[in-house]
């Protein structure tokens, strides 16, 4: 389904809805709130379990202190993730009922499996966090393993659905819009699934690694440099630094997949109007009114990046009618933000890894720690910008080249009211969570006895 003018594209009719943009923004807001929590869900359990394993291996109480404290943060973030995830499930139906009615059976299996992993995760998060000092150390460690697996599996399944939206397979469609020959497994393992999953998985480690490291970099600058703070800085910082380097490779892979399967989206990344041989790449700049202002143009670079061939032809936006083109400005600018933020973090990570490799110590400059603090919010920018790139780049389709977003939306009234209510709710929620996490950070660290008795 890589062609863009298949007759099936008109199998559905637009719903009468004056607030399509608001509906999309409402969905985007909910996703934007949920995705940072997903990052923690993906990676934080693994990092915590790594600390607990270090404690079991070395017997040093500091690692157990870290694991225990972070597990409480994990519980709060998980609880908030549970509710924001629930909202998303509701919105799929409340905002896009035509999409669900027509395609629910095609991609539903992935959500069913996601529901299962979420369930297992909820069970073991509770056992793990409330089981400190109650379960035998080994048992306790083992109850953490399902959290790591399900955190990955859940994201994996949701991204399979997103991959399917971008690269729909596993069904046929009649000219009257009837979905037939459903094959949920083919839908699950679509071509977009692998690179999207790996890209997001690494993003999970980058985001939670840099955010947690930022907290302890702040402490470091304030002179708290004991064994606890040192370990709590080094572990997430190392994780994030390694992950961001791998992420560059995955980014390249993802870009090439998009070039092959969604050429129009790639053209939007670059703001490429016409189909061009040996297309140049503009690094940076701001896209306003069909033109990039500023930035450095590198000849042949886009062809080289997209197809690993400087002479390759890159399809432009003009290959499809205007109504099938995504809003280029949003896509291009989000893409630029992602690339810049990712590159800046990669430089920071490489610097850290280099110093560690050559000198086996942390960098001494205060600027380094300030940069680490900044890397936390920067990683969130890259994350959200990356999702805007791929999701706005998917427009005007909800199911790529098959169903338009305007055909999927609800006919319900009052979307602006719902949007405003949800925005206010999330604003309040974000404020409360930040205040409370800050307070948690100020609590005294629990003392661990070097030899704690098994409960």
């Amino acid at each position, binding site marked *: 389904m890589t062609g863009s003018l298949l007759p099936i594209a008109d199998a559905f009719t637009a719903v009468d809805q004056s607030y399509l943009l608001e509906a999309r923004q409402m969905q985007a807001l909910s996703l934007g709130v949920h995705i940072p929590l997903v990052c923690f869900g993906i990676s934080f359990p693994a990092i915590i379990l790594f600390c607990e394993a270090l404690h079991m291996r070395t017997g040093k109480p500091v690692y157990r202190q870290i694991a225990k404290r972070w597990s409480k943060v994990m519980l709060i973030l998980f*609880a908030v993730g*549970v509710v924001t995830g629930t*909202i998303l499930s509701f919105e799929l139906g409340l905002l896009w009922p035509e999409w669900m009615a027509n395609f629910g*059976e095609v991609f539903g299996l992935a959500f069913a499996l996601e529901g299962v992993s979420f*369930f297992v995760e909820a069970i073991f998060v509770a056992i793990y966090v409330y*089981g400190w*000092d109650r379960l035998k150390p080994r048992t306790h460690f083992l109850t953490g393993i399902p959290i790591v697996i399900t955190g990955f599996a859940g994201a994996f399944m949701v991204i399979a659905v997103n991959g399917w939206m971008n690269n729909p397979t596993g069904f046929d469609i009649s000219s009257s819009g009837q979905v037939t020959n*459903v094959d949920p497994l083919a839908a699950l393992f679509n071509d977009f699934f692998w690179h999207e999953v790996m890209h997001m998985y690494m993003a999970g480690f980058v985001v939670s690694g840099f955010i947690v490291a930022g907290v302890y970099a702040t402490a470091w600058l304030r002179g708290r440099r004991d064994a606890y703070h040192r370990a709590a800085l080094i572990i997430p910082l190392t994780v994030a630094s390694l992950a961001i380097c791998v992420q560059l490779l995955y980014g390249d892979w993802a870009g090439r997949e998009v070039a092959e399967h969604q050429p129009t989206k790639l053209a939007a990344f670059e703001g490429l109007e016409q189909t061009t041989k040996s297309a140049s790449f503009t690094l940076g700049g701001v896209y306003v009114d069909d033109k990039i202002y500023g930035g450095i143009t590198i000849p042949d670079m886009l062809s080289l990046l997209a197809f690993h061939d400087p002479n390759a032809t890159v399809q432009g936006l003009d290959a499809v009618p205007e109504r099938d083109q995504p809003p280029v400005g949003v896509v291009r600018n989000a893409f630029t933000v992602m690339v810049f933020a990712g590159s800046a973090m990669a430089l920071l990570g490489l610097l850290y890894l280099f110093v560690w490799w050559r000198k086996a110590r942390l960098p001494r400059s205060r600027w380094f720690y300030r940069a680490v603090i900044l890397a936390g919010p920067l990683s969130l920018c890259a994350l959200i910008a990356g999702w805007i790139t791929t999701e706005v780049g998917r427009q005007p389709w909800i199911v790529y080249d098959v169903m338009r977003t305007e055909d999927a939306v609800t006919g319900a009234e009052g979307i602006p009211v719902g949007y405003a209510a949800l925005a206010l709710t999330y604003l309040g929620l974000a404020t409360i969570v930040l205040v409370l996490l800050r307070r948690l950070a100020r609590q005294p660290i629990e003392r661990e006895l070097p030899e704690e008795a098994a409960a």
Partner: protein
Amino acid sequence: MTAVDLVTAVLVAGITAYAVLGGADFGAGFWDLTAGGARRGARIRGLIKRSMSPVWEANHVWLIFVLVIFWTGFPTAFGTVMSTLYVPLFLAAVGIIFRGAAFALRGEAATIGEARALGATFALSSVLVPFFFGATVGAIVSGQVPAPPGGGDPWDSWTNETSLYVGVLAVALGAYLSAVFLAGDAVRAEQPDLIEACRRRALGAGAVAGLLAIGGIFVIRDDAPDLYDGLTSGLGLAVVIGSAAAGLLTLWLVWDRRFGPARFTSALAVGAIIVGLAVAQSPDFLPGVLTLQDAAASEDALVPLLVAVVIAAAILIPALTYLFRLTLRGTLDTEFRPIVAADRGKEEER
């Protein structure tokens, strides 16, 4: 048994589990709301927090399970229900955000004002969410959702008598279940005064819920005659009688202070109501306009879904059993502490 029957059974089982386990958690919020002033309510609020903390996430996930089975198994019905009942469902969803966040975060409150605000948010949304879910169920079973595609009236569809009644019933049933469960938890916490307090609540709520359930028959008779026929004949009637019997047995067990078995009979009484509603409208999904057979996804989609459910059961049943065993044995219990606020920093060792 066809694939449609099996998926229907899975969906009803999921709704039943959510009504019982999620319902009890909502009910706990009801008791939190009605516990009285900061001083008087402190002990029961402490018990509620202690009981809910390790299990509420797992209990809540049943809702996700229900949604997922609903949209995968019955996509067209899902589309119509969502296009019609978006008002109560959106309100329930927003209530869930407030409730979950307030519960997760109230332990971190530093001042009495903060604790009150978070506590009130938790308690109030705990009452509103089951009401809106109940009203949604009421609207579906009383035939307010039109045939797909498109949707029905966003307000009239769920403000008929049956919908409002089922909403109120959902709140009452949750409160009843919760009081029974909390009484058992109070025994484990070794707090005699709380055992008595919860026992009184369980008896009172049991009586109210029972009367509501009986009285509701008359509401339904006038407002949704087809549903009434389903509930008063054949298998539907048998299930209704079973529910009533389990309810009476629970009252006796609670009276006799045997809270362990009462936990199960009360769950049975509430679960049977959900099953009864499903039986009463079978073979229709949307009464009068859409059968289960027509609402269901194709066999190609249902079979993999059922396989996934079987795999899920193989993983989830042992995991849930482990969680509930640890919980009921008290392994995950935190030290009992009344919620009086302004006691932060002494946050219990978990």
